[in-house]
C-alpha cells in the first residue's frame, strides 16, 4: 500500500504525462481507493477471546481456546484445519448455535445471542426439513425473511435460487430422495435466497463434484459481487485451491484440543480472479505451498 501511494506521488510530481502514464495513474488510483476502502471497512464480525468447552462424561473438553479474529465487512474468509479441530464449533459461535464458554462474538454490531436470519447458514449436515419438498424448504425460509413482498415475488426468489443450483426439476422431491450433493445444493440455495449480510458456510461444497463445485464458486462470487461486495462470507473448507480462489484471508487452525489460530494467510490476488489463470500467478504457488505446509507440517515424506 505505501509503495503504491509513493508511486502515485511520483507520478503526480511529473509533468507532461503521456496518455499511457495517465491511464496507469487512473488505474492505480482506482485500485488504491479500493484498498483504502477495504482497510476502512467496518468490522462485520468480531470474535473476542472466544473459548468453547463442552461438558462430557469424562469432564470438560475445550475445543477452542481464546480465539480472537476481526472480519471486515465484505471480506471472504476461509477456515481450514484438520478434522475435529473446531472449525464448525467456531462457525457455530458466529451463527449463535454454540455459546462461547467465555468471550463473545459481535456480528452486525450486535452481541451474538442465538441464530438469526441476518446470518445465513449452510449447515455441515444440510439440515433440511425432511417433510418439506425442496421448493417448500426454501420457500419457508424466504417467507420468514422477507415480510413485505407478495407470495409471487417470494416464489420467484425460490425459483431463481433453485435454478441457480440446477435443481428446479427436482423441486417437488423430498430431501430423503436426494443425493448428498443435491441436498447440499438445496442448503446453498436456501442460504443464498434469504440474501443475508453475513453468509456462514460450513463445508458448503464438500459433497459436490469438481464441475458443480466450480459452478457454485462462480455463483457464490456473483452473489457477493451483487451489493457492492459488502456481504461478508465465512467458509469452512478442506480444499486449499478453493480457499485460495475464493478468499481474502485464510485462517488456519491448530489441531485440538484447545485449538487456537495457527496463522492467518493473506491472499493478495486481485479480483476478479480467473480459475485457470490464477494458478500461473507467481504468488499462487507460494501461497499454496505455505498453506500446505501449515496443514501437514508434522508429516514429511521421510516419515513413511
Amino acid at each position, binding site marked *: 500500500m505505501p509503495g503504491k501511494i509513493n508511486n502515485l506521488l511520483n507520478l503526480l510530481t511529473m509533468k507532461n504525462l503521456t496518455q499511457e502514464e495517465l491511464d496507469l495513474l487512473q488505474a492505480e488510483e482506482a485500485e488504491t481507493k479500493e484498498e483504502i476502502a477495504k482497510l476502512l471497512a467496518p468490522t462485520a464480525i468480531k470474535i473476542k477471546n472466544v473459548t468453547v468447552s463442552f461438558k462430557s462424561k469424562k469432564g470438560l473438553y475445550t475445543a477452542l481456546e481464546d480465539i480472537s479474529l476481526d472480519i471486515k465487512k465484505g471480506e471472504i474468509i476461509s477456515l481450514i484445519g484438520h478434522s475435529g479441530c473446531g472449525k464448525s464449533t467456531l462457525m457455530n459461535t458466529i451463527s449463535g448455535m454454540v455459546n462461547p464458554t467465555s468471550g463473545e462474538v459481535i456480528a452486525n454490531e450486535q452481541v451474538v445471542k442465538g441464530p*438469526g436470519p441476518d446470518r445465513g447458514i449452510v449447515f455441515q449436515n444440510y439440515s433440511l426439513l425432511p417433510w418439506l419438498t425442496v421448493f417448500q424448504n426454501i420457500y*419457508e425460509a424466504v417467507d*420468514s425473511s422477507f415480510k413485505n413482498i407478495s407470495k409471487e415475488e417470494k416464489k420467484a426468489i425460490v425459483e431463481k435460487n433453485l435454478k441457480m443450483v440446477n435443481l428446479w426439476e427436482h423441486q417437488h422431491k423430498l430431501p430423503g430422495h436426494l443425493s448428498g450433493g443435491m441436498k447440499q445444493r438445496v442448503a446453498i440455495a436456501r442460504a443464498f435466497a*434469504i440474501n443475508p449480510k453475513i453468509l456462514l458456510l460450513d463445508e458448503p461444497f464438500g459433497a459436490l463434484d469438481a464441475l458443480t463445485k466450480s459452478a457454485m464458486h462462480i455463483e457464490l462470487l456473483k452473489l457477493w459481487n451483487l451489493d457492492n461486495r459488502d456481504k461478508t462470507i465465512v467458509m469452512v473448507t478442506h480444499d486449499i485451491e478453493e480457499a485460495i480462489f475464493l478468499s481474502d484471508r485464510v485462517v488456519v487452525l491448530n489441531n485440538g484440543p484447545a485449538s487456537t489460530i495457527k496463522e492467518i494467510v493473506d491472499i493478495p490476488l486481485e479480483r476478479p480472479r480467473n480459475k485457470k489463470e490464477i494458478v500461473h500467478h507467481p504468488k499462487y504457488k507460494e501461497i499454496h505451498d505455505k498453506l500446505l505446509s501449515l496443514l501437514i507440517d508434522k508429516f514429511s515424506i521421510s516419515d513413511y
Partner: protein
Amino acid sequence: MKNTFIKNTIGQIVSFAASMLLLCLIWQGITILTESEIPGPIATWQVAKEMFAEPFYDYGPNDKGIGLQLTASLWRVFLGFGIGSLIAIPLGILMGSSKFIMRLFDPIVQILRPVSPLAWFPLGLLAFKAAAGATIFIITITSLWPTLINTSFGVVHIPEDHKNVSKAFGFSKFKYLTKILIPYTLPHMITGLRLSIGIAWMVIVAGEMLSGGSGIGFFVWDSWNGLSLEKILVAILIIGSVGLLLDKFFNTLKMAFAWENK
C-alpha cells in the same frame, strides 16, 4: 413389483383365513369340553344371521337391533375420545415445549393414568347427573393418557437441528408449530391416538354395562340377563372386529403421515 404385491395380498388373505379357522377349531373344542354349555361356532352363526337380518329394528328402549346398539356405542366412543384428544394434544404440546409445564403436570398424569374407569364412574354420575354423561366422562378420562404422553414425548424429542433451522431462518412461532413441531410430532401423536382409541373401545363396554340403556355393552349385559350366550358371543366378535378396524384405521393414518419412509 405389481406381481409381488398381488402375491403378498393373497398371502395375507390366506393366512387370515387360516387364523380364523384355528379360532373356530379352538372354540369348537371348548364347546365340546363344556358339553355345549358354551355354544359352538355353528349355533352362534345361526343366531348371528338372525341378528344381522334386521340390525336396525327398534322396539322400544329395551329392545333394539344390534346395528343401533353398535352405532350408539361408536358415537359415545368418538365423543369421549374426541374430547380426550382435544385436551391431550394441546396439553401434550405444552408439556413437551416447556420444562416447567412438564414438571408441573407430569406427577398429575402419573397418578391419574393408572386409575380404572370403574373408579371414575361414580364421580362422573355425580358430576353429570346422568349415566350417559358419566360414560363419556370415563372414556375421556381414561383414554386421553396415551395421546398426551406420546405427543409430549414427540415434542421433547424434536431434533436440535430442526430447531436450529427455525432459529437460523427466523421462523415465527406459528411457522415453527406448523412446519416443524406438528410434522415431526404427528407420527407420535397418531400412535398415541391409536392406543387411546383402543382404550376407549375397551372402556365403552364396561361403561355401558354400568349405565345401561343402549350400546353394545348394554347389549351384552341384556343378553346375559336373557340367558342368550350366543348373542354374547356374537357381541364379543363384533367388539373385537370393530376394535381391529379402528386400530387398522389409525395405523393407515400413521403410515400416511410418516415422512420417514417416504
